């Protein structure tokens, strides 16, 4: 493998990158409204959930018709395997659950054991949501303070904007695909924040290191050179991180796949934003409030 010295002009084309990002975010927002909001899981909305194993392979229409017959038209059905289904309803008690199970057993045939069984009080879901927001908020503020101390405020602000970008894009993908958002998704989003910041720091670190050469080269050239220098590291790290995550997306169970999807999207946008969003913001900031001059 040949070692190459890249020399791409990242900053000069920054308008293009920002348009690409805006298009992705707007697509996500459009998806949000078209799908009628996020597909929030039982963790947030409360309700009852059962995973049933049937004695044979069944399709959605068959399960749906049984559920309709017993008056659960609004139940959400999710096929996890050819003979396994997750049934989600409004909060119901054990007796009603047993009625549903009896009907399914009678009409289709079940193995009689539940794979999982959950009841979440809607009030509790609100509490989970509250803590999710607090966790994201505290995480972001902590990161901002750290970068402020280690670098400069402008770097911290640019990194946070890149983070917001990553979170918006990831949530947009969830809205467009109408995938369920649960507590695992929140953990995944926080991980993305950690990962994306990690990537951004590597770029900023190079910019910080090369800043003394600004007088000779100009700030735009400094930033461009820095990005080019870390390009192969960024791509390689993203690849090595993505390898196991994509395997999880292919091989994992439904719950693991949920997690892996958010991480895959987040790692890709995280890598993209540290190069194409965070760095141009730093340059734009310097253009407006020049600190480093030629």
């Amino acid at each position: 493998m040949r070692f190459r010295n890249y020399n791409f002009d990242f900053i000069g084309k920054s308008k293009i990158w920002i348009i690409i990002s805006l298009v992705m975010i707007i697509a996500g927002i459009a998806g949000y409204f078209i799908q009628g909001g996020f597909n929030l899981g039982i963790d947030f909305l409360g309700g009852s959930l059962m995973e049933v194993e049937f004695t044979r392979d069944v399709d959605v229409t068959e399960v749906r018709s049984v559920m309709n017959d017993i008056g659960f038209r609004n139940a959400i059905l999710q096929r996890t395997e050819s003979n396994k289904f997750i049934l989600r309803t409004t909060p119901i008690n054990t007796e009603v659950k047993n009625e549903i199970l009896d009907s399914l057993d009678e009409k289709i045939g079940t193995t009689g054991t539940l794979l999982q069984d959950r009841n979440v009080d809607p009030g509790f879901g609100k509490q989970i949501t509250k803590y999710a927001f607090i966790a994201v908020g505290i995480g972001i503020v902590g990161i901002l303070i750290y970068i402020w101390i280690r670098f400069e405020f402008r770097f911290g602000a640019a990194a946070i904007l890149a983070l917001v970008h990553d979170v918006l894009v990831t949530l947009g993908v969830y809205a467009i695909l109408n995938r369920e958002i649960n507590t695992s998704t929140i953990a995944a989003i926080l991980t993305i924040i950690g990962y994306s910041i990690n990537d951004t720091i590597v770029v900023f670190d190079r910019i910080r290191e090369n800043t003394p050469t600004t007088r000779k080269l100009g700030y735009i050239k400094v930033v461009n050179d820095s990005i080019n220098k870390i390009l192969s590291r960024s791509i390689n790290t993203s690849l090595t991180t993505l390898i196991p995550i994509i395997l999880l997306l292919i091989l994992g169970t439904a719950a693991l796949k949920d997690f892996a999807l958010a991480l895959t999207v987040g790692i890709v946008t995280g890598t993209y934003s540290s190069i194409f969003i965070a760095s141009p913001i730093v340059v734009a900031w310097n253009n407006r409030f020049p600190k480093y001059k030629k």
Partner: protein
Amino acid sequence: MRNKKVHITIIAIFIAMISVSLYYILKEPINLGLLKEPINLGLLKESINLGLDLKGGTQIILKPTERGGEEVTTQSLDQAMFIIMDRIDRLGLSEPLVTKDLSNNIVIQIPGEKDPGKAKEIIGKTAQLEFRLVTGTFISIKNQNWDTLKFDYEKGELVIDPDAEKVLLVDDINALVSGNLYEIDGELLSDPESEEMLLVKYSGEDNQETDAEVSSTGDGSEINVDINIDPEKVIGKIIYKPETRELLLVDYEDGSETGEILVDSRTGAATLVGQVLLTGDKLAKVAAGYDTYGEIRVALSFKDEGVGIFKEITSENIGRNLAIVLDEEIKSAPYIKVPITDGDAEITGIDSIEEAKNVELVLQTGALPVNLHEEEVTFVGPTLGMDSLNKGLYAGIIGFILIIVFMLFYYKGLGIYSALGLIIYIIIFWGIISGIGAALTLPGIAGIILTIGMAVDANVIIFERIKEEIIKSKSPRIAIGYGFKNALRTIVDSNVTTLITAAALYRFGTGPIRGFAVTLSLGVVISMVVSLLFTRSIIFLMSGISRINTPGFLGVRRRSSE
């Protein structure tokens, strides 16, 4: 030469760490049968303390609320947790874990392949046993017929037929049923001004002299009576306390509690009872069984102190009914014929012997000092979790191999170091998880797989720097030194930010998310230590051997690219 000694010491420390890790990983008895599998997953699984979502089990989250005006304190919460532990032990459920979460909810984890079914219902039962005198039963009159009033527990209100002409309080419902002598003690009316629900004295059939007109809002929840109420006749007003879910009768003037409306479990009728005269904490013995007629019952006997009070109550109230109330529900209300002096009582009105045994168990363990509301109940079967664990581990193993192939392909000789570093990383990681007994959860698996990818990152940063230095025509040995030095700051800064995220997750996350935060931060710290100390030392030591220390070995074709 001094440097060399340092590097050898570091490597020796790592060998010691690996040995300790391997000890913890291998400590569990090895099932030889499992070795026949191509990859010994059984060994990996047995050395780790698995979370409920992986091994299967039940998690119950209970939110404490104040009971009887007593606020929830750390002390009452701890006491409640102790009682819950006791109940789970008596139920014979294995290895329960009772903890508090961030919002002071009680979190109960019971491992087990089977859904514990009814057991989960009685764990959080308040089990407050009270003895209170029955004041009367509410009935509604409609077209010359009467019916008992029902009670909506969820809404905490009386269900009143919108067409009812009037709602009355009858002192002895059994007498009314059997056609014996009974008295009407009160009438339920709605104050047209304050819309308060009032209980007023009933003065006979001709109480309607003021042309009382009953109307209803239609939802059956209240009746509006267009009538002037004589303040003299008001017994009290009825108020609902949503925080404790109590429907109380209070004094009209000073608001002091004089009674409570409870549901009779046998008839479902709304019954007014007086104040609490005796509670379950005065019990000495509780036994579920059958009485001489073969009826299911729970026999109670009081401590000396309780015997005296019970004797006093029964001798002063002959001819009245004494309600035995368990968790705000009237179980039975026997008629007091003679004073009871031996302190024996019984609870009847129980449907099955299992229920009687549950009542026995909860009364034996004592009443909880707080009320508990079921916030979340989750049961995960063992197959589902094991499936995730197996698939997660396979994804990790294949990912691990692919990463090593990639590193060897791209960084040539340096790739060998990163492969070695990655293997050591995984051994130490697994050893620590086994050693500290942290529970591995489903998001935890994802965390581990993510950190495998991230663990390589430090190597990538270092190797890229080394390559850069070699391009600048530095000798490999010097390039390695500069490479590590330049990479150090980047690696520390980038990993600290990840740790900040993990800390936020740990502090505010629930259950499995915390497991994820633990694996993520462990992974970040271990990978940093391994690449900055172990990989560095091994590369330095090996760089002394000139044959394997050419630019080509380090993945650079010198000058050919410039």
